[in-house]
């Protein structure tokens, strides 16, 4: 029985070859074929995205985040002015581009949003459970950590991405992040790398950055937190990763979890050396 089927496979191998490109590794010629028409459109998109970026709605959320940072709030009626984002309490200039990093007080590697939530819990007395309930922007509400991340990110505008790899835990986070990035599972056999591990791929008309290399990692780091034109909502990388895992057909990752900090360490380190433009605009 098996041998008959085997023969069928051999007989069809010509077609199998024709379809081998479906694996994605040989998709490059396709990209080129579609390239001519696309590049003009892409150039037009870019031009108007630049126009948008000159006065990005993200600035509204930076302003809101700044107000939240300095306001006494929560059960402990405290501001976040003593929150240490890695450069010392209250020192925000250039902090975002050096995250995720290891924090001795928490004994963990933390990305910007994870650290802000940590500060909201330790300094202001909010409960992480409550903050994790509805952590992403909806049509009617932008959660406070989102505005706060946007504010903190804005304080690194024009600065070089320099995610540290000094501490052993930071190096470990990178390695574990890389493994998570490449881990295929779920009903559709997807990993992060399926879409974001190769050069020059698109889903529909959307370019997919290759996060395993610097150029793509920069493209993925850049523009977040981002104002999404669809729905007009401000989103952070926590949201982006959550939605990636949804489309990866995985179960849902925990908000500000270690898994996500590890993935962001992998991405951030790969993007190191590039000048961060600040909160951006997304389609």
């Amino acid at each position, binding site marked *: 029985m098996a041998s008959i089927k085997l023969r069928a496979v051999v007989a069809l191998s010509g077609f199998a070859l024709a379809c081998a490109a479906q694996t994605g590794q040989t998709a490059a010629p396709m990209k080129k074929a579609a390239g001519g028409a696309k590049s003009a459109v892409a150039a037009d998109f870019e031009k108007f995205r630049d126009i*948008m970026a000159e006065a990005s709605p993200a600035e509204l959320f930076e302003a809101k985040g700044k107000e939240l940072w300095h306001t006494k709030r929560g059960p402990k009626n405290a501001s976040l002015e003593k929150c240490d984002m890695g450069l010392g309490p209250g020192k925000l200039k250039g902090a975002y581009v050096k995250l995720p990093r290891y924090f001795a007080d928490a004994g963990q590697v933390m990305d910007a949003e994870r650290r802000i939530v940590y500060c909201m819990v330790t300094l202001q007395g909010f409960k992480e459970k409550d903050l994790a309930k509805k952590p992403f922007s909806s049509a009617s509400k932008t959660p406070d950590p989102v505005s706060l991340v946007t504010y903190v990110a804005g304080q690194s505008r024009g600065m070089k991405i320099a995610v540290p790899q000094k501490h052993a835990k930071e190096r470990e986070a990178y390695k574990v992040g890389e493994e998570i990035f490449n881990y295929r599972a779920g009903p559709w056999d997807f990993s992060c790398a399926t879409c974001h591990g190769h050069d020059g791929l698109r889903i529909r008309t959307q370019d997919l950055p290759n996060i395993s290399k610097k150029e793509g990692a920069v493209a993925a780091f850049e523009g977040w937190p981002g104002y999404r034109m*669809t729905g*007009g909502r401000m989103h952070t990388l926590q949201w982006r990763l959550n939605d990636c895992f949804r489309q990866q057909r995985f179960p849902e990752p925990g908000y500000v979890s270690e898994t996500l900090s590890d993935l962001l360490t992998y991405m951030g380190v790969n993007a190191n050396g590039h000048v961060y433009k600040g909160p951006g605009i997304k*389609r």
Partner: protein
Amino acid sequence: MDQTRRDVLRASGGASLFAMLAAAGLLRSGPTLAADWNKKAFESKNIKDALEALGAGSPADSADIVMTAPEIAENGAVVPVAAVSKIPGTESIAFLIAKNPTALAASFNIPSGTEPSVSTRVKLAQTTDVHVLVKANGKYYMTKKEIKVTIGGCGG
């Protein structure tokens, strides 16, 4: 008229600033208020009705109006549009969108001393002509440009 305007101002809550300005004698021409909003024009379903409601009739095509807008909008929810009028005596600039549920998107009054040039961002329901209507010395002029709205994304 002056009295009415001041009453409206006082009722407008955010007017403390103007009360101050008025007291300081700075308020020479007060801000126009929402009462000016032309309901009929803004509720018109098509360009023709909107033009009628604005009293613009059939405006002449003009090459002296320059509209800047993308050929293809990356996202119909936020489409940057800008218009500059080179027609002397420009008093107002309006944007009208042919295939939106209501055609009139915005109307800007340009006082003397302000350049006849405005930029904003609009929503487009679908691929459509966007018109810029200029009123200058009491006469109306218009230009238009088609903006394509793409679908895209993976829909997951």
